[in-house]
């Protein structure tokens, strides 16, 4: 008996351990006067997502059905997903169950925080002049107004509307405020370390100018691994003082071959306003023959703007372009060497060598 009790206790404890702990963080009154409790869920003691276990009536002229769903948001209030009890699927007009396509459409609608549903009252979304009479029960529902047909699941205007407002309404607006109140060093590190790009933007935005030095390892990781758009955002946000620091400058320039063209352009633009270190220049010089004509002009421009920093290795790479099979390179390379030769004896020597060896 004791053993059985112990077993049950153990299983219960294990089961309890498997369910991520959650704590109530705030509550919201919906338009239908239903109180919704918003919980914060933790995993490994780190905040993971917000959830609301919702039971709400969806009504039209007194005819109601109960919608039961769990709704989830990320830590910034972006709606993530909903989950339904297995025995309570969503239904349309006349209690027809949602099809696979209906669910797919609903997912799309709920994911659009800018949906027209946010701008319209429910009455605007159904055409009261073309009411459909239910064959099953004594209920009527207006035909969906044509203009918003893509905004709602056909035959389920009221459910779509209710779910969209739960997902993208007051709760979504309050979550960021709550998260911001909880933000500490650990959470910021969690955001930086995440693979979820919305957290990257958020984390970058939290940094004060003087904090960038401290967080450069994390920022370099984002430049290497995050969404192409986060990379551009990060390169833009990184202050000039970082680009002026030769070590961090070099680490950023090391990423040049692997970032997309727009990010490359952004990086070159940033480098134009700071002194370019010899080591950074060498990295760029190594890739000269993989650049577009426009980029080549920019990079050679960086070199001629910093003639003292152009070392022998970089000069050698420019010299290679003089005889490159791509004719687009010859003239800019020759011009750059000529400009550099006024300040740089190695460039002068390379130019002389080239001119004496040319027919």
């Amino acid at each position: 008996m004791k053993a059985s009790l112990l077993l049950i206790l153990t299983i219960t404890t294990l089961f309890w351990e498997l369910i991520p702990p959650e704590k109530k963080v705030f509550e919201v009154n919906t338009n239908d006067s239903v109180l919704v409790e918003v919980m914060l869920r933790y995993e490994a003691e780190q905040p993971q997502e917000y959830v609301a276990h919702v039971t709400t009536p969806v009504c039209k002229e007194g005819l109601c059905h109960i919608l039961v769903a769990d709704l989830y948001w990320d830590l910034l209030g972006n709606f993530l997903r909903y989950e339904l009890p297995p025995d309570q699927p969503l239904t349309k007009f006349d209690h027809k169950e949602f099809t696979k396509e209906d669910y797919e459409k609903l997912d799309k609608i709920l994911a659009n925080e800018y949906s027209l549903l946010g701008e319209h009252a429910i009455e605007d979304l159904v055409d009261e002049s073309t009411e459909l009479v239910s064959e099953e029960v004594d209920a009527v529902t207006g035909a969906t107004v044509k203009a918003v047909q893509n905004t709602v699941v056909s035959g389920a205007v009221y459910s779509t509307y209710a779910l969209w407002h739960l997902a993208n309404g007051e709760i979504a607006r309050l979550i960021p405020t709550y998260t911001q109140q909880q933000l500490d060093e650990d959470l910021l590190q969690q955001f930086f370390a995440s693979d979820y790009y919305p957290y990257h933007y958020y984390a970058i935005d939290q940094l004060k100018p003087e904090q960038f030095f401290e967080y450069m390892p994390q920022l370099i990781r984002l430049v290497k691994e995050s969404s192409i758009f986060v990379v551009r955002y990060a390169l833009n946000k990184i202050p000039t003082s970082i680009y002026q620091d030769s070590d961090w400058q070099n680490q950023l320039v090391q990423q040049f071959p692997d970032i997309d063209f727009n990010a490359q352009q952004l990086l070159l633009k940033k480098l134009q306003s700071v002194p370019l270190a010899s080591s950074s220049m060498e990295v760029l010089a190594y890739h000269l023959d993989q650049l577009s004509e426009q980029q080549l002009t920019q990079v050679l421009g960086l070199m001629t703007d910093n003639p003292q920093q152009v070392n022998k290795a970089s000069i050698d790479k420019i010299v290679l372009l003089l005889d490159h099979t791509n004719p687009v390179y010859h003239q800019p390379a020759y011009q750059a060497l000529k400009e550099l030769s006024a300040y740089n004896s190695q460039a002068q020597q390379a130019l002389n060598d080239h001119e004496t060896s040319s027919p």
Partner: protein
Amino acid sequence: MQRLLIIFFLCWSVTSPAQDNALSDLLFIEAESFTDKGGWKIDQQSFDVMSSSYLLAHGMGRPIPDAVTTVSFPKTGTYHLWVRTKDWAPFPKGPGKFQVAVNGQTLDTEFGVSGSAEWQWYYGGETEINQTEVELALKDLTGFNGRCDALVFTTDDSFTPPNQPQVLMGFRRAQLGLTEEPTNAGNFDLVVIGGGMAGTCAAISGARQGLKVALIQNRPVLGGNNSSEVRVHLMGDIDKNYYPKLGRIVDELDSGDPGNGNPDGDLYGDERKLAVARSEKNLSLFLNTHVDQVEMKDGQIAAVIGRDIASNQEYRFSGSLFADCTGDGTVGHLAGADYRAGRESQAETGESLAPEEADNFTLGTSNLWASVELDTPTTFPETPWAIQFSDEYHIDEHKADWQWETGFGNFNTITEAEEIRDHNLRAIYGNWSYLKNQKADKYANHELAWVAYIGGKRESRRLLGDHILTQMDIQDGVMYSDGLVTATWTIDLHFPNAENSKYFPGEEFFAATKHIRVQPYTIPYRCLYSRNVPNLFMAGRDISTTHVAFGSTRVMRTCGMMGEAVGYAASVCRKYDVLPRAVYEQHLDELIDLVSEDIVEVQK
């Protein structure tokens, strides 16, 4: 040796420091004149910028069959090859790679990947020519829109073909023998330039009124944006017309609504349009002919000159009346017609929808595309040179609709038409590569079935007539005495989609719109002829409107009806031997009667 292949063997006198007054052999070949184009397409969309068509390797990511031709060299020997091309996507290096083969031997040099977006001559190395009859081939390596304008073989190792535009034009004309008189294509009552819906309807309408008509179109098909090359559906109603007789030719050409960008090109009815045009005995159809010159006499157009987009043969079309249905207002521009481009200011037009300041903003150009679902998975390569997408932003669609659009003042729709098309291609291929490679669960079995290489242009020049249609004319439903063509489309002025703008500021390729509803209204006849080139009509998107009003008049059924009206008006001109303005001033009743005939009840 095929007759149309224009190849000239000239002794090109070259002066260089090394070789004064040397005489060398030079062979110039226009790529578009290759007899067998293989899978390459002729692209004439930038003719007005380049003075030439070129060949395009449009394989949607799969290498296409070679273009092949046979040429005669003046003598055997060592020749230097030059190829005029560009890297169309230097981000940083594009995908449009191709090689040249001489008598089956592929030369080493790979063209199209220089990193430079400028059209220019690239050196292709030396090649031994051991026999005078030689087979040349252009070998596409990727299917990703490599392009070739022309080739030069020369025995002079110090000769570089010219790149400077004016010098190049002279060189090209000299090589093509275009300094001589163009072939006379005939004298016509009405010369219609542009074979879109407006031009085709104008030509058929005029021909049916007994005029001797030339219809000149720079593509192999009629229909313009409604052809299978662009695949935009016809919009604007023809059943609400004040004069219901207008719209009948539009209806004849209409083969149903396949929507925008349908993967089945046959549904757009190219054959039907050609058949209707060809059945008109008074209509002479000149396909594949791009008009790039006008001859003026006493302030009027005496003739237009067009060039065959493949053979480069020049033709001269003289006539009494001309109709600019080019969309771009090309003929009007060449003839010195007054025009506007971009948006007028609110102060200038008094329109509530006009911007405060005038600017160069125009609606964009669409290159539509479609995929089809197959039974088995297919692959599509990574496209690092294209616009890049991610989970954060991509367009999760298996086909395009009107929103796939580039322009919006970021590019000039005439001088940068090639860049606009290429930007569209970079968006399409980049997004498709993302969907195929990162969303394989949904797109593994999808295959690109069609991508338009001809851009569907919405806006360029608006030629000015005696009346300039405005937003107020439309919204107040003003019925002028010469109100002729009934329009019904909303004021539909596209702008960049906000999210697209956020991710690609200044490089948008996805549009949004707000439809401003209108009641049916009529476009006055005075919008359909030039105010300062007296024998020039216009129909289509280049008629006399403000930018705002154009937002409503621009749809193709409405444009087609403008063409029909021009055909009727031209017949009045001929009957009284008068110019278009005199039809309004002296014979308006007769024009109205013409479009009213056979109508039992017309409420005037």
